[in-house]
């Protein structure tokens, strides 16, 4: 009897917390759709709102985490779904693929290393350093890699959102300022540094922005997934 009531309890809290999370998230999606402001990012706002709710009602994070496991399971199929834009980019990759692959491999290795080293020098917590070094790629893949490399998923999620927001809000202005004016170069840069958030924002500018940003988004994620396990493990042995 008591086992049954415990199970009913877990089921009820699963339903409650998952529905609540959906409600909060989709309200902010609607808010952003109506206001059309990049910085009103639904993921960021939903995280902050749920944190406020948990603190307000003194609910333990582990309880919330277990209750919303259903939502977190969806990360894996979500990563698989990126295969579709990757398939759409195959013709674009064919024309300049050697140059683009080389450029992105170099940039990904650079940003992973410099973020990891900076964090180790300034904060010196390996888990946080792993998280920050994986912040330039899309959330689904960043979090999957963080777990594989024993980083901290919540820190990665937060860092990824910030990197996305910086690029989405200031990216084009900065690139124009340093005289990077080609739509293809702008798209590639923002897709590489600010993943889906940046890509979604600049896709409104032109078809070329959209195509090159999503190309960079996908390739950076795959390249980072391939090189970071080796690179991060090696760099961490220095400390």
């Amino acid at each position, binding site marked *: 009897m008591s086992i049954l009531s415990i199970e009913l309890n877990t089921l009820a809290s699963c339903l409650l917390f998952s529905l609540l*999370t959906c409600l*909060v*998230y989709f309200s902010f999606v609607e808010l952003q759709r109506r206001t059309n402001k990049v910085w009103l990012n*639904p*993921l960021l706002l*939903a*995280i902050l709102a*749920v*944190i406020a709710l*948990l603190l307000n009602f003194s609910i333990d994070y582990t309880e919330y985490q277990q209750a919303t496991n259903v*939502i*977190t399971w*969806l*990360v*894996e*199929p979500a*990563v*698989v*779904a990126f*295969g*579709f834009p*990757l*398939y759409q980019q*195959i013709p674009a990759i064919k024309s300049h693929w050697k140059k*683009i692959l080389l*450029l992105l491999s170099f*940039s990904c290795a*650079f940003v992973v290393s*410099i*973020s990891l080293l900076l964090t180790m020098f300034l*904060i010196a*917590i390996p888990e*946080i350093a792993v998280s*920050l070094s994986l912040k*330039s790629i899309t959330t*689904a*893949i960043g979090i999957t*890699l963080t777990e594989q490399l024993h980083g901290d*998923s*919540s*820190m990665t*999620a*937060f*860092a990824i*959102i*910030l*990197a996305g927001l*910086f690029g989405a809000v200031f990216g084009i202005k*900065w*690139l124009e300022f*340093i005289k*990077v004016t*080609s739509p*293809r*170069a702008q798209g*590639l*840069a*923002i897709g*590489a540094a600010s993943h889906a958030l940046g890509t979604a924002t600049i896709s409104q500018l032109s078809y070329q922005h959209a195509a090159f940003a999503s190309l960079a988004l996908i390739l950076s994620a*795959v390249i980072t997934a391939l090189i970071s396990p080796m690179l991060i493990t090696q760099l961490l042995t220095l400390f």
Partner: protein
Amino acid sequence: MNIIYSLSAIGISLLIGYVLNVYLTGLPASLYGMIVFALLLHLRIFNAKKIEATIAFLLRNMGICFVPAGVGIITHFEIIKQHGLTLVAIIFVTTFLLLTLVGVLYQRFEDNSKNINNTVSQK
């Protein structure tokens, strides 16, 4: 019907991803799944037309999957209080370094190949 078709296509790719992960290790299963999904679409084993709409919906709304992970930041209250500003500064600086690197290098590559084309056509 297309929704079921799309979700099964994703499910099958993910399953193959799990098998590859067991035998090849290295990448996470979901990443193998992503590459398998792209390949099967390219080989026209999956019908891209039937999948398109569902994928667009999934990609637009996938942010919801990361809310619970992001909320976990509250378990790091101490780190944020101590290093919050440094964390944001590192993210800010490295993001702009990456933007600059990729943007400048690709722009230079494009300008160079334009110049080469010009000299070739002048000859």
